[in-house]
């Protein structure tokens, strides 16, 4: 059976390219808005136009970055998952809570097999 053509539209350049996929349209935007900024229909349509063109035209694995930007500077890139002196203790506690919750989920039979 012939395979099905696919294209990934994503915002994590390093993760998708490490895995490798047949077609990848990348946006340098925050995780959560891989197609375009919220309410920015022109940006979203531009991304999707490119994704569909790549779906049809690509003959070999292809990855391409869109020129879109989230804001005029890159300050937003510093905060996601940042580890700082201010949140270090909170992160440690979050890890402890996570491990406690996993044990509870497992005891409740919530683990997938």
């Amino acid at each position, binding site marked *: *059976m*012939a*395979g*099905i*053509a*696919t*294209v990934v*539209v*994503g915002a*994590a*350049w*390093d*993760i*998708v390219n*490490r*895995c*490798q*996929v*047949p077609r990848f349209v*990348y946006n*340098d935007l*925050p*995780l*959560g*808005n*891989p*197609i*375009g*900024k*919220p*309410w*920015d*229909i022109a940006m*979203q*349509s531009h991304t*999707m136009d490119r*994704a*569909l063109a790549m*779906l*049809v035209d690509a*003959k*070999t694995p292809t990855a391409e*970055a869109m020129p879109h930007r*989230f804001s005029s500077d*890159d300050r*937003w*890139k510093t*905060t*996601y*998952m*940042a580890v700082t002196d201010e949140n270090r203790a909170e*992160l*440690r506690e979050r*890890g*402890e809570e996570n*491990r406690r919750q996993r044990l509870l*989920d497992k005891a409740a039979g*919530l*683990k*997938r097999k």
Partner: protein
Amino acid sequence: MNYISYIERTKAFYAAQGFDLPYQWSQYDDVPFSPMSKRLSDACIGIVTTAYRDQTTPMMARQAEAVPTEDAPTNFLNDDLSWDKETTHMADRRSYFPLEYLKLGVKSGLIGSLSSRFYFAPTQYSQRLTIEHDAPAIVRFAQEDTLDGVVLVPI
């Protein structure tokens, strides 16, 4: 290009939470590539999303699903997924779920048709669950719905 290295950042973030073994991200040398078998104007296109519509099912119990496209929520329930909640919001589903775009494409004749279902891919920690269960399920859904092309949008 000044992209964020999510791999490095995630490693540091979870190390700070006391998880000693870093996650092993998927890495393949070969990519199975399928060309489009039809013109776009004759093709049936589907959407795969990692956005979820029902938070009553705990993350770790979620499995691949095919959902009638007409039941796609205006607002998916993404609060327990990982995305940049400090910088942005997901109140506009078009920023991660291209249903309106594809519907317009069908109307204008750019696209042949839109699948009657969309597909949910859970973001699993376990690659085994993705490879052995969720990915084959989504391939089955795509074959049942005779898709020609799929747009996958991980949030």
